[in-house]
């Protein structure tokens, strides 16, 4: 196995996630795309950990999983609040700070 096959898979997933974050206007779907980004990063951590033969890659992947769990909890709470205030989670309409 090459190191690069994991890194390229991670890069491809990351770019698909970037497309999702930019193209979607539904708040929950944007959060799903962010999960894609974080998982692509985890794949890189694990691949480099295996490449160097240390468990440190796994340790940081576990940290990222923990942070992602916190992120999705707070993110969904914010989306729920937006829905409660405007009865829509269309992110294009959340532009109160636009000059």
């Amino acid at each position: 196995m090459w190191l690069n096959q994991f890194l390229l898979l991670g890069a491809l997933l990351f770019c698909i996630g970037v497309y999702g974050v930019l193209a979607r206007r539904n708040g929950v779907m944007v959060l799903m795309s962010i999960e894609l980004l974080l998982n692509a990063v985890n794949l890189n951590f694990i691949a480099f950990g295996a490449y160097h033969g240390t468990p440190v890659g796994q340790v940081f992947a576990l940290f990222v999983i923990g942070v992602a769990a916190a992120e999705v909890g707070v993110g969904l709470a914010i989306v729920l609040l937006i829905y409660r205030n405007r009865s829509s989670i269309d992110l294009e309409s959340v532009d109160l700070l636009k000059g």
Partner: protein
Amino acid sequence: MVAQNIFFAIIALAMVASAVRVVTSKNILHAALYLVVVLAGIAAQFIITGAEFTGVTQVLVYIGAVLVLFLFGIMLTRARIGREESVDGDRRWLAGVVALLLFAVMAYALVDAFDTEALDAQNALEPQSTQMVSDAIFHDYLIPFEAVSFLLLAALIGAIVVARKE
């Protein structure tokens, strides 16, 4: 090694196809369920590289907890179950161009840096046992670990405070 490569290819194909469906599906529930395939594929890749503990944690945390949170989010925001045309923004083509350019740059850099470097050249890809991982977490990375647990607590309280009805 050949068997690992075959499994890698099958899982990677399924993951990429599902990931594309996650970001293009018009049906929000289908997008969430395609996300399950991607997350399970990631867990399988972890196990292929010998990271068993992280693979199991991935299944527990992502498929067990995060996906249920997403389904709750879909339910509570009363998304239409079924196709919905309004989930994609108007600047989709721009987003596609950005993603393609980003992938071109990253692929060029990765191929340039690691060409055909073998993953298992030095250490024959030994499984990194759960004992090694726990030793690393609770010895070298104890303070970051405590910081993550505190962050989780803060996020939990924050989510309750934000989402609670007045």
